[in-house]
């Protein structure tokens, strides 16, 4: 198992390096001059030259690449100031180190993700299990119907409605905002409760449907029937035998969802005017801010690879066939 984790980690580092290289060369190779973008509208040739020099764009391509990659490990110096490791370069737009920007925004994204996961896993999987257990009954029909409707909603639709009702017209709650958990745990929860709930409503609906269908699929499995033929109680068979197998597809999707959320829930952040990683990604793209975009992308890629490894470890934990082969 340890060997497996080691191998996967090495693989992930290599993949990250390749992604970094690929994005770097794609941007540099693209026929646009980033110095002039950074320079702004009324740009004098001298200023442009300065910026070129400051960004290191006057150096050979190989040197630029080396500086970028070694900066991540060892840090590098810019004329505008230090960029300690891990250095992902300086943002043109914010004129700040990209890493600092990401570190600044990450807590919000993490809070949204963790809060969302807790909600939609508990409620979604719980409802899905209940619906599967009481298949064909009213409970099942209501759960299935509601999740069908809710999962076809979108955050940018549900979000403003909730805001309109709870914030603007009634004033029961304040505008969503981020308060660091370490400062004020209650404020943290209250500030983010609306975005978390709105986001997880849609995920909850999806997870309800997924949990229900994969448990029902598992209940048809022959080994589940064998367990019943042994006289094991229905509830025991449901939780020990059917649920175990149903977890595999759920874990797969969960891994994808978590890495997507950590890479930035753009729509959620924009809908509720929150400053997270997603917002940073949008800024990078809109402002054609090369270092920022690359930085956000690498962080996103890191989360995806991390989740992939975690999902594989989860498989091994769930299924001995994976563990022992």
């Amino acid at each position, binding site marked *: 198992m340890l060997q497996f984790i080691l191998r996967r980690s090495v693989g992930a580092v290599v993949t990250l390096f390749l992604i970094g290289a690929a994005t770097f060369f794609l941007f540099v190779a693209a026929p646009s001059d980033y110095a002039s973008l950074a320079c702004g509208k009324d740009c004098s040739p001298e200023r442009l030259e300065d910026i070129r020099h400051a960004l290191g764009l006057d150096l050979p391509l190989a040197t630029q690449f080396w500086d970028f990659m070694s900066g991540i490990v060892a840090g590098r110096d810019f004329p505008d100031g230090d960029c300690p490791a891990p250095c992902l370069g300086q943002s043109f737009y914010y004129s700040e180190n990209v890493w600092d920007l990401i570190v600044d925004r990450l807590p919000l994204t993490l809070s949204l993700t963790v809060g969302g996961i807790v909600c939609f896993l508990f409620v979604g999987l719980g409802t899905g299990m209940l619906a599967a257990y009481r298949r064909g009954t009213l409970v099942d029909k209501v759960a299935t119907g509601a999740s069908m409707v809710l999962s076809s909603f979108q955050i940018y639709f549900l979000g403003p409605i909730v805001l309109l009702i709870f914030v603007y017209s009634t004033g029961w709650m304040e505008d969503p905002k981020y308060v660091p958990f370490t400062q004020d745990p209650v404020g943290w929860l209250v500030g983010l409760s609306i975005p978390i709930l709105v986001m997880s409503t849609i995920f909850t609906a999806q997870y309800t449907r997924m949990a229900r269908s994969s448990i029902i699929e598992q209940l048809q499995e022959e080994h589940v029937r064998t*367990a019943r033929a042994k006289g*094991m109680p*229905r509830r025991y068979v449901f939780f020990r035998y059917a649920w175990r*197998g149903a977890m595999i597809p759920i874990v797969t999707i969960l891994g994808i969802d978590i890495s997507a959320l950590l890479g930035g829930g753009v729509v959620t952040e924009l809908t509720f005017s929150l400053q997270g990683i997603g917002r940073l990604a949008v800024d990078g793209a809109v402002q054609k801010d090369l270092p920022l975009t690359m930085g956000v992308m690498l962080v996103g890629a890191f989360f995806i690879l991390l989740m992939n490894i975690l999902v594989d470890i989860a498989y091994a934990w769930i*299924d*001995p066939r994976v563990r022992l082969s």
Partner: protein
Amino acid sequence: MTTLTKTEDSPAPTGPESFLSVRDLKVRFSTEDGIVKAVDGLSFDVERGKTLGIVGESGSGKSVTNLTVLGLHNPLSSTVEGEILLDGQDLVTAAEKDMERLRGNKMAMIFQDPLTALSPYYTVGRQLSEPYMKHTGASKKEAKDRAVQMLEKVGIPQPRTRFDDYPHQFSGGMRQRAVIAMALMCDPELLIADEPTTALDVTVQAQILDLLRDLQQEFGSAIIFITHDLGVIANMADDLLVMYAGRAVERGTTKEVLGRPTHPYTWGLLSSMPRLDGDINEELMPIPGSPPSLLNPPSGCPFHPRCAYTDQVAGNLCADSRPTLAPGRAAACHLTAEQKQTIFIDKIQPRLR
């Protein structure tokens, strides 16, 4: 054969020696396409310590019958009518809690495919111990001892080590042995084996069949042995029930049914099977057509569209009226005893040598 003397329509009290008694069992599934009459008026008895073979092709209702006996049919989509008496207790009307107490304890099942019949997520030992702990209230240690003992009995080498292995670490034949051990954990009085060797290789099948027979002698369970293979059943069963389209078409002792079969379907099955010692130049005599859809079964005798002898029955009887299965040694067919005798001697018997 005294236990087979009850008619289909009279659910008389069961005799003392009849351990399982099924009376006029009807199982229907509602599907999108309509109602499937999976089992349509089936009656049979199983005596203690004896083996009843149920033979039929896919869709004959043989597996559904036995899932119903165990109460493992889907209660939402199926309806069950009739009577299933296990040692005097009606299983059709029994509460789920009571069924749970019986399953794996008084009656156990061996499924067809050992690869899918065991859960891949738990060790073989755990899966064996579970029912024993539940039904006898034994401790974990007692259950383990019992499981190791049973694994040894069915021929698993190093049972104490293999106890902690997962099913995928067993070979196909070993898995089926583990499934058999699991079924025998609580010393069941009724064992239902649903095509237990169909997924296995020939040499392994021979080992498992002999094992089941030897174990029955030791444990004295009644066995219902379901199969499509007449060769397998010939060596396993005391009594035989031939099923077609959800109904029993012929019953008797194995020797009677295979030695002097009296239903055209049984004739068809026997003469369409190639044999190791048969005449090589004799062409196989298949049954024409295919088994009927149970959504819309043929009128009258369900076998009549494939039957070669309907012209010997007066009028349109075969298509119009459903032949009944008389008590005891019998076949559900409109042919007279003399006709059957003549056809069998002239056309069928020469092939069965």
